[in-house]
């Protein structure tokens, strides 16, 4: 009996100690200080109004000022409830009832209610010019009628009480994948109405940081929001986003200690990866962007599946990724990247087999090969440079590759007009695997993403079935099978998934490998320790 009591006591102590250890981990997060981060993409931040922009450069900042209904969870690799949680789901899987979390305040001191959700999304659909993010809201029943001006409200969006509301969807999808996006964030109507078009210049949200200062083309400064609904967060006092397009300038700023974390480009990656000190603080993730060459089926040789498969077999993707792209890429398998919920860990890529490729070319009647012009931009990771390298591989099966460099907008025009033979680019392939694979559904117009006019009845049927099932495991299985079919048809040549890399200073804690876009860091969780030159006092 005594022994049992002692064991019970020991167990209790162990659990308590475990609890303390867990808490102490949380407590070790030090408060205060300034974090200097970068906005590394294409130039100036254009707007801090989340409904007016869909640019990553803008949204990586707004995602820390605003909050959306859902938030991307790195741990669960899917969106989870943020502002509200689902209380019930109807039997048909179309109507979701939500309960808002308590204590959510806007930076102007007002509590958020269900009306703010409804008003924000109605705004997205009714603003002129239309919000580029309006498409995400159109999954709600009645949204299109409201956008067209045929209804006074979105019929599928209903207020139940100040803290409860329901959403009726037009089809059975996981709403988290639509409403986690920073571009669907909830805004306070009175602040938007007061500021009008200029709301994006001094925004008011409900996120962990308040807007501080914005010097257009230089930096944005955010300051801690004391009434943020996650108690004790954020840890940082100040968060600066420095607009820095040049990788070399970012590199020097980081090494001089001015920046706390930077995005690493392919040119810098080997140096960081091989440096014993710098490599310790690298975060790498396979982002949900798949790099490919669109093979236009209207160009006769590419209409033959055997030719397309031969192209995939004749190119050694690993050699391109490890040597030309210096390892800053993840080798491909199917359309979905390894970070996708629908990725099949047992699937295998085409591999590198020139003999088999030659056989397929001969079977298709192209033993003597043909000419292939591939269009692309000057992008170092998925531009004409890659085409020049792969041309050497395709020489082995007598395909003579030429390339032409074009500006992005012009390239897009050529893509949607089917005015190309091959075209190298990078497309989003997540986070919702169903949505990502539906790009290649035969009903998807080429202007909406099915640029190669891919059509396979079996593939379509698997996706349709996946869209109609509530069984998550069955859905994932269907998606994996569909991805395998798409891969086998080789309608596009996939050569990698982007390996996004962040380098951080040793004093930085809490940065994560966010697969949807590594720059979408949630700074509510990030802190710096006392060794930082900008630590809190």
């Amino acid at each position, binding site marked *: 009996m005594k022994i049992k009591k002692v064991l019970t006591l020991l167990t209790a102590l162990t659990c308590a100690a475990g609890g303390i250890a867990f808490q102490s981990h949380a407590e070790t997060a030090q408060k205060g200080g300034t974090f200097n981060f970068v906005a590394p993409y294409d130039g*100036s931040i254009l707007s801090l109004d989340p409904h007016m922009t*869909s640019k990553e450069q803008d949204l990586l900042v707004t995602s820390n000022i605003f909050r959306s209904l859902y938030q991307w969870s790195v741990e669960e690799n899917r969106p989870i409830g943020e502002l509200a949680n689902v209380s019930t789901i109807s039997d048909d899987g179309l109507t979701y009832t939500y309960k808002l979390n308590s204590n959510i305040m806007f930076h102007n001191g007002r509590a958020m209610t269900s009306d703010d959700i409804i008003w924000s999304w109605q705004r997205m659909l009714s603003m*002129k010019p239309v919000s580029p993010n309006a498409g995400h809201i159109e999954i709600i029943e009645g949204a299109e009628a409201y956008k067209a001006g045929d209804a006074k409200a979105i019929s599928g969006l209903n207020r139940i009480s100040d803290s409860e509301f329901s959403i009726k969807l037009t089809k059975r999808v996981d709403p988290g994948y639509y409403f986690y996006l920073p571009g669907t964030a909830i805004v306070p109507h009175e602040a938007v109405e007061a500021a009008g078009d200029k709301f994006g210049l001094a925004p008011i949200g409900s996120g962990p940081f308040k807007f501080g200062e914005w010097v*257009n083309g230089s930096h944005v400064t955010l300051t801690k929001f004391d009434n943020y609904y996650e108690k004790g967060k954020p840890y940082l006092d100040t968060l600066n986003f420095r607009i820095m397009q040049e990788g070399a*300038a970012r590199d020097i700023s980081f090494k001089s200690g001015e920046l706390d974390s930077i995005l690493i480009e392919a040119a810098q990656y080997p140096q960081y990866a091989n440096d014993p000190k710098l490599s310790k603080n690298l975060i790498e993730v396979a982002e949900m962007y798949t790099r490919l060459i669109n093979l236009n089926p209207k160009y006769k040789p590419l209409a033959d599946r055997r030719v397309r498969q031969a192209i995939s077999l004749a190119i050694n993707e690993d050699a391109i990724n490890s040597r030309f792209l210096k390892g800053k890429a993840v080798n491909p398998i199917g359309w979905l990247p390894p970070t996708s919920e629908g990725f099949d860990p047992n699937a295998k890529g085409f591999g590198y087999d020139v003999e088999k490729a030659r056989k397929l070319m001969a079977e298709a009647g192209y033993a003597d090969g043909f000419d292939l012009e591939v269009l692309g931009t000057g992008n170092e990771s998925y531009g004409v440079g890659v085409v020049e390298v792969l041309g050497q591989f395709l020489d082995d099966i007598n395909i003579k590759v030429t390339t032409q460099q074009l500006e992005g907008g012009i390239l897009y025009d050529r893509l949607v007009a089917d005015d190309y033979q091959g075209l190298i680019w990078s497309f989003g392939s997540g986070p919702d695997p169903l949505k990502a694979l539906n790009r290649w559904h035969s009903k998807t117009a080429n202007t909406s993403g099915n640029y190669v006019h891919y059509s396979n009845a079996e593939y379509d049927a698997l996706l349709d079935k996946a869209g109609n099932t509530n069984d998550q495991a069955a859905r994932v299985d269907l998606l994996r099978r569909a991805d395998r079919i798409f891969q086998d048809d080789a309608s596009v040549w996939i050569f990698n998934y982007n390996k996004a890399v962040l380098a951080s200073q040793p004093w930085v804690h809490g940065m994560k490998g966010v697969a949807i876009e590594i720059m979408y860091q949630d700074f509510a969780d990030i802190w710096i320790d006392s060794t930082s030159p900008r630590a809190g006092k």
Partner: protein
Amino acid sequence: MHRFILKRLLQFIPTVIGVTLIIFLLLNLVPGNAALSSAGRLELDPEVVAQLRKDFELDKPVIVRYVNYLGRLAQGDMGKSMLRRYDVSEVVFGRLGATLKLACAALAIALIVGIPIGFISALKQGTWLDIGLAVVSVAGVSIPQFWLGILLMYVFSYMFNILPTSGYGGGAFSNLILPALTLGVGYAALLARITRAAVIEVLAADYVRTARAKGLSALAINLRHVMRNSFVLILTTSALLFGSLMGQTVVVERVFSWPGVGSLLVESIFQRDIPVAQGCLLLIIMVFLIVNLVVDILYRVINPRIDFK
């Protein structure tokens, strides 16, 4: 003088109309989908794209859009940014201060360094000093701004850690030093070469020979005759340099994240934000025209023999 200024100002009107037409046509004829770019990405619901085209009047013929644009411009309205969705004048004028600051600082470096070097080179023509300064000048003209910017950043921000690497830093002087040096070095070298040539030409003039024959000291000749007479050419070049600086800041602005008009212009062209690109170009051209007018007036001040008629 007043009539001259008024006449020159009136000449601005047809110039500006001509320039707006060229800019408008060029920017609107560039291939690429402005409606898609206005949304900031290349993959959008076709219905959203169609709506954006309508909202931005991109569905109307170019000539109709130009007439509408000109009409608005006459009322001081430069239109709305397709990406930022607020007034172009606010976007562009918000960046002008930073560019003027950078261009003035770079010009100051060019004048302070370039003119004395040019004078010394000319006065010591053919000596080792002249050859050495010529080598330095040629190097200064030839160094790519991007490379020089990164090099200065590496030395002063990383090795010595005494200057910030980039950014506007609330307008702090320390943030201006590296971008101004990067931009100013090439212009200093160019100005040194031009000053040298101008001074050598004046030194060979008859009136300088006469002054020497009169027994004037070298200092008096250089101050009274050489400097004054070579100054007209130097002033013209400096003014042209300033105008050129306004449009040449783009590389430096990008490397140092300097929030000026140059980088805004390039960004807006790539992003197909046509109203902003038009606004930037118009502003740069207006500054160029005004600088030229000021130079014409200064000519008269320096040399009253110049006749405005």
